[in-house]
């Protein structure tokens, strides 16, 4: 069957892979402390970055507001915050991430701060193809008590060889990919997907915030 009908084989495989990864089955986190310190507003600091891609922090930052706001929180304007901190003697994300919580509370009036650390980012080249990867850890901290309300991992990967076409097809595809796309172009949509999955999943994502129309019916941590 595999030799005669490879598309069917791959279609079946995709169902299997999705079946295993689509809906998580591990235990949900304890939302008790999060619920009792429910924030209305979230300040996102530009992420610290372990990868070699210098742009990673700000590309990631440009994809975090939407899922957070759709979850139901006020999200401080990320670029305005970044500029404000730069004008006040904090030129890089690393320095911004060392500002004490009481200072952040005084300057921004935020209820909670989302700290993000990028662990892996960009394209890994193999012989005839490349894989694009985003991996980051996030931590939501209560600005008054310093309590960690929630932790999550944003993760996504995509292979350039997806779509088949035989060995020659893959080689051409890999070459064209490298010419047409900069790493940033490829990672940007992946970063969006990774954040969406981390924040808006009902299993271990953020609790729905006060601006969400389903805030009252979110039973997690109650």
């Amino acid at each position, binding site marked *: 069957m595999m030799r005669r009908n490879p598309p069917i084989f791959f*279609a079946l495989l995709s169902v299997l892979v999705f079946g295993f990864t689509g*809906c998580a089955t591990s235990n949900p986190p304890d939302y008790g402390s999060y619920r009792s310190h429910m924030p209305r507003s979230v300040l996102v600091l530009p992420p610290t970055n372990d990868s070699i891609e210098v742009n990673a922090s700000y590309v990631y930052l440009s994809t975090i507001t939407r899922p957070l*706001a*759709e979850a139901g929180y006020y*999200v*401080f304007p990320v670029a305005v915050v970044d500029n404000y901190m730069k004008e006040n003697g904090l030129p890089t994300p690393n320095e911004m991430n060392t500002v004490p919580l009481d200072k952040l509370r005084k300057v921004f*009036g935020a209820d909670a701060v989302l700290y993000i650390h990028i662990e892996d980012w960009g394209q890994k080249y193999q012989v005839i193809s490349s894989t694009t990867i985003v991996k980051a850890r996030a931590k939501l901290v209560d600005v008054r008590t310093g309590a960690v309300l929630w932790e999550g991992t944003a993760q996504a990967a995509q292979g350039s060889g997806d779509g088949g076409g035989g060995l020659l097809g893959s080689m051409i595809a890999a070459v064209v990919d490298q010419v047409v796309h900069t790493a940033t172009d490829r990672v940007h949509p992946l970063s969006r997907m990774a954040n969406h999955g981390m924040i808006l999943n009902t299993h271990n994502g953020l609790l729905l915030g006060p601006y969400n129309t*389903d805030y009252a019916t979110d039973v997690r941590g109650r």
Partner: protein
Amino acid sequence: MTGASRFTILVVLVNLLLISGCATQKPPLYRWGEYEQLVYEMYSEPGKADPGTQVAKLSEDVGRTQAEGQRVPPGVYAHLGYMHYIQGNQGAAMSAFATEKALFPESAVFVDAILKRLKGKKQ
């Protein structure tokens, strides 16, 4: 239609069903427009999103969002105010920041600090 292609279509349908089973089907809270794309461009391709372009695109976004009876997302008016400020348009900047605060009182502490600075620069 061959049996194989019919089978492929079936598998695609099953996949769609699996995907939609996990997703929450709700309309978005806000109309997003160009805001996040502009933030992306101003850091990764600065020439593409100069303040003038951003003011034009965000103003168009805000107008359309209001015309459609939808909600402007958190941060959009503040970002628009920041772009007006870079362009040297203090009055429009202050008005946009004030709108951010009116829509989202959570921004009051930060916006008030910015308005105080802008007032200082105006005199």
